[in-house]
């Protein structure tokens, strides 16, 4: 039973990792940037949701409805932040040296953290979602309602992004740019705009995930790094640029970490995750679903 409980816990938290990683995969696949500031989008999303609820309610305590209503706010705010970052900063280093793009996004990460510290202080904060009963009992397994909401929300964000990519005109343009940017310009796609929209979508989904993170964990301005690292592991697990791969990779990583924490020690979770990453890179470098480095976003 303990094993099943750890797996359930892992899947619940893994969906959030997956939603964050899906955005990371999208930027990597389309814009060809490893965005080291991606975790900061999770942080900003958490604060956007936290402050929305605090402004409406006067405190960070919310009904499930209000908590859910704050998620689209975080998504919208982070879309604008992501679009602007790409258009005014990152676009200037696209196509240059990989090291330069890493430095720029690392610099952005530090800058956003510092601005976060100035604006929000280092105090950890969380959104308290009020339920009559905090947990469900399903076949003897404990499922916290707030984590279940976060799980459903994160999966919904990921599926919505997948559907957007497959079914909309902008989604097709994003896929086109990821596969052949010169050909995309040839058929009349504004490549710079599409890249900025992609960055915006990636940040938006990370921001939405951040809103859910704020409901189940503490948020603080320097929380982003761990989400960037986990996203990196998940994207390599799932395959570069593969949205379904990121979803499966996220669920897998969450499960592995919970099993490690449950049966070994929580101190070993990152070590086990990165060991798996190294093994996978040696055995199947293209990831579970991807086409290897430079694969397309789908």
């Amino acid at each position, binding site marked *: 039973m303990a094993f099943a409980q750890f797996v359930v816990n892992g899947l619940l938290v893994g969906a959030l990792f997956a939603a964050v990683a899906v955005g990371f995969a999208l930027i990597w696949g389309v814009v060809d940037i490893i965005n080291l500031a991606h975790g900061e989008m999770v942080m900003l999303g958490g604060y956007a949701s936290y402050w929305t609820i605090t402004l409406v309610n006067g405190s960070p305590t919310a009904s499930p409805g209000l908590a859910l209503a704050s998620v689209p706010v975080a998504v919208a705010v982070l879309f604008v932040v992501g679009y602007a970052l790409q258009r005014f900063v990152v676009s200037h280093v696209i196509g240059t040296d990989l090291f330069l793009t890493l430095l720029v996004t690392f610099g952005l990460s530090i800058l956003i953290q510092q601005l976060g510290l100035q604006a929000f202080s280092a105090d950890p904060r969380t959104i308290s979602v009020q339920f009559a009963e905090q947990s469900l009992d399903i076949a003897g397994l404990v499922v916290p309602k707030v984590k279940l909401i976060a799980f459903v929300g994160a999966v919904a964000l990921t599926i919505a992004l997948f559907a957007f990519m497959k079914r909309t*005109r902008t989604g*097709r*343009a994003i*896929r*086109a740019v990821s*596969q*052949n940017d*010169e*050909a*995309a*310009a*040839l*058929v*009349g*796609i*504004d490549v710079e705009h599409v890249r900025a929209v992609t960055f915006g979508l990636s940040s938006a989904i990370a921001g939405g995930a951040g809103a859910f993170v704020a409901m189940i964990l503490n948020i603080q301005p320097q929380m982003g790094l761990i989400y960037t690292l986990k996203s990196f592991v998940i994207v390599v697990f799932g395959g570069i640029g593969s949205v379904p791969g990121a979803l499966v990779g996220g669920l897998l990583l969450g499960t592995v970490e919970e099993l490690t924490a449950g049966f070994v020690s929580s101190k070993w979770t990152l070590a086990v995750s990165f060991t798996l990453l190294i093994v996978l890179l040696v055995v199947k470098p293209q990831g579970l679903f991807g086409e290897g480095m430079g694969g*397309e976003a*789908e």
Partner: protein
Amino acid sequence: MSTETITYDDVDDPLLEMRDVTAGYGNTTVIHDVNVTVGDGEIACLIGPNGSGKSTLMKSIYGFADVFEGRVRLGGEDVTGRSPQDNLRAGMSYVLQDASVFPGMSVHENMLMGGYVFDDDSRARKRAEELYDEFPRLGDLREQRAGSLSGGQRRLLELARALMVEPDVMMLDEPSIGLEPRYIDQVFERIQQLNDLGTTILLVEQNAEKGLSVADRGFVLASGEIKFTGSGTELLNDEEVGRLYLGG
């Protein structure tokens, strides 16, 4: 035969004109003071050695390269520096020299991307169906991933995709490059058919004899400058052009 043999003023009904165009990329100038005029309904072929600026000339027309001086006109309208989106909407399309399909998309999705500038998808779907009637082989392959097509099939897809916008003028950069001889003949037959239907063609072709043989008008570009102009036949028969550029 010289640059004075045919000038832009000799063309009765010019559709595409470059006047004194100097163009390149960033700080690098590739073509200098170029004058090219293509009449409505003509096939024009641009030949020249590798690195002479042929592709840059086309890119400067389409908005992919920077025009530093001079003007580009389409149907009398100044289109200098206009974006590819606007050029497509105005009836100009372009097929690149390099593979320009979207390899992870199906043939049909690639065709629909050719109609990306249309305001509604239904128009693109309708136009794609019309083109499948003209290119039945593509219709048969519509669900196949473009990345798995042969070189000839890919070239056919690029041509058909460029026709999605029903262009008045079509620019083709090295349409025969990398193709087996049987596909080269098919591609040139198709170019001739398109021209017969009224599409004006500007062609860059490494296979100079093949290109000039179908061309109403030819231009020889070397070191970024137009060195010779004339009808396709005149250039093919010119001794100096033959010696320098046709291997004769």
